[in-house]
């Protein structure tokens, strides 16, 4: 059976996937970048939450001071917020860098140009704006 790696800061995506996406998937979950990297090799596809609002700062991927300096004129608080708001894409970037090219679906209402940019950067990526099981399965089928 295909294995779906769910990547989120809570448990709602995993609960949803176990109810509505299994089958066709066998579901496993990660809540931080290092957990995702450890599980990625065995996964067929990724289902990703973009925003990690509930994550502790020490559990986030990315260096807040580097981000503050490069993106926010040194504003550390703003950088810390950005790391939470974009954590899903940062984790996907890390997975791609590690050689994991599996299809990835975000459950997030991205504007079309953002989806296009994510595809340009990370290949097989789609976005579904809500917890719509049928749409998510169709997105994975389209990326296969």
């Amino acid at each position, binding site marked *: 059976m295909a294995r779906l790696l769910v990547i989120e800061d809570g448990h709602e995506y995993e609960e949803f996937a176990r109810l509505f996406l299994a089958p066709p998937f066998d579901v496993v979950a990660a809540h931080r970048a290092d957990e995702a990297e450890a599980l990625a090799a065995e996964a067929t596809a990724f289902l990703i939450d973009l925003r990690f*609002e509930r994550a502790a700062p020490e559990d986030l991927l990315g260096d807040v001071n580097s981000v503050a300096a490069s993106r926010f004129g040194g504003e550390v608080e703003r950088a810390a917020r950005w790391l939470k708001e974009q954590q899903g894409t940062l984790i996907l970037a890390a997975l791609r860098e590690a050689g994991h090219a599996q299809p990835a679906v975000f459950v997030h209402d991205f504007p079309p140009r953002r989806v296009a940019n994510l595809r340009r950067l990370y290949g097989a990526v789609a976005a579904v704006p*809500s*917890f719509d099981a049928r749409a998510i399965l169709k997105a994975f089928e389209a990326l296969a």
Partner: protein
Amino acid sequence: MSRAEQAARLAHDVGKYVARIARNVPAGAPVPAPLLPLLVKDLYERPGADFASLSAGLEHPDVAVARAHLGRLDALESAVREGQPDACVEACGLALQIEAALARCAEAMAT
């Protein structure tokens, strides 16, 4: 936090999750019994999804729409927890409308 960021967070933390189960129940159809506990969780038991605090200071017609629908959800809570079919159907409809309203607000604030 800018208004755009606030609206985006509201759409994510409240709108998306309140409709998680409701989105997957056919419109107007009874909520299957195994899904009821998760529907209750989505509607009434999400810590950190406090609409009042997340929407504080954010003025937009769709925030008012979401607030009104959440008020109606509160009134339905006992009936939904008991699994009363009509209440659950109405609650699912409200959840979808809340999601849509907050998504519209986030889109409007982003442009």
